[in-house]
């Protein structure tokens, strides 16, 4: 309660409320979002079966550290729980629209990059399926050649 006769610049109060708003509402949402994004991406990269064990190990470690750090830093108030839930929901909804997460080698940079194929991207899905079929066929041919 402040006496209305006092003329106080709103800047300090505005900055305070912005900071508080970020930590109370945006931060738990970001942590929820990042946790689900990380774990689902990890799951998909692992399920491809082509990623090196070191990549899977590194990714899993980073994702678990991010989520644990987030929980440690955000568990302060009960009011944060719905916002964390919103972040989880948003990430889950977004991930449900993703067909696959692959890590092809970049043509110019010659390094593995994360590539997302969306469910609506029929051309991308077809290319991915062709690549998988070609790889499977090459694997069969190599096996036959060995025999």
């Amino acid at each position, binding site marked *: *309660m*402040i*006496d209305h*006769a*006092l*003329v*106080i*610049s709103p*800047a*300090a*109060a505005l*900055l*305070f*409320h912005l900071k*508080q708003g970020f930590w109370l509402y945006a931060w738990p949402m970001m942590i929820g979002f990042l946790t689900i994004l990380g774990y689902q991406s990890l799951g998909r990269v692992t399920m491809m079966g082509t990623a090196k064990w070191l990549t899977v190990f590194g990714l899993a470690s980073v994702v678990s550290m991010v989520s644990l750090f987030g929980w440690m830093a955000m568990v302060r108030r009960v009011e944060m729980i719905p916002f964390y839930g919103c972040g989880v929901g948003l990430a889950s909804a977004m991930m449900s629209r993703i067909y696959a997460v692959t890590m092809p080698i970049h043509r110019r940079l010659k390094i593995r990059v994360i590539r997302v194929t969306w469910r609506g991207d029929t051309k991308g899905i077809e290319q991915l399926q062709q690549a998988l079929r070609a790889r499977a066929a090459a694997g069969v041919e190599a096996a036959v050649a060995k025999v």
Partner: protein
Amino acid sequence: MKRTLIALLAGTLTLSAQGPVPRPAPELKIVETSGKSAMLSSYRGRVVLLAFISTQCGHCQRASLVFEQLSHEFGGRLQVAEVAFDEAADPAAFAKRFGLTFPVGASSSDAAHAFLGVAPGARLGTPQVVAIDRTGVIRAQSERLGTPLLQTLDYLRDLLNAMFRLEAKR
């Protein structure tokens, strides 16, 4: 049934009510552990930043450091004082631990509630910060469950400057 509901509502309103702002500050005796005591009215002529704290509360500990900085910034124009009202509080140890140079005393919970204009036994969020002008009028006070804004350095600095400006106008 109707009477019970009205009584319950009245009871809730009484418990959640607190003194209006501005209002004259009631008298308060601040007793330090050393036995030294000071009356709040003896600070008249200076702006007073008074906080009712719990020595175990983390917010109070952080706010005390803010008050210490403000007391240095404003020098003789500002008198900062803290009153611990938690049970088994040791204000001297608290002041020593956080390097506080302003008076830190103790009082009963009832005295704190009475000063803040809150019903005895009502839950209080700490710290309860009160800004009193040179004439002994309360110009700002925390909400009953606490006002985090009144614990921040920038806002308190602006508030104190606004109080000085208001007095200069009059």
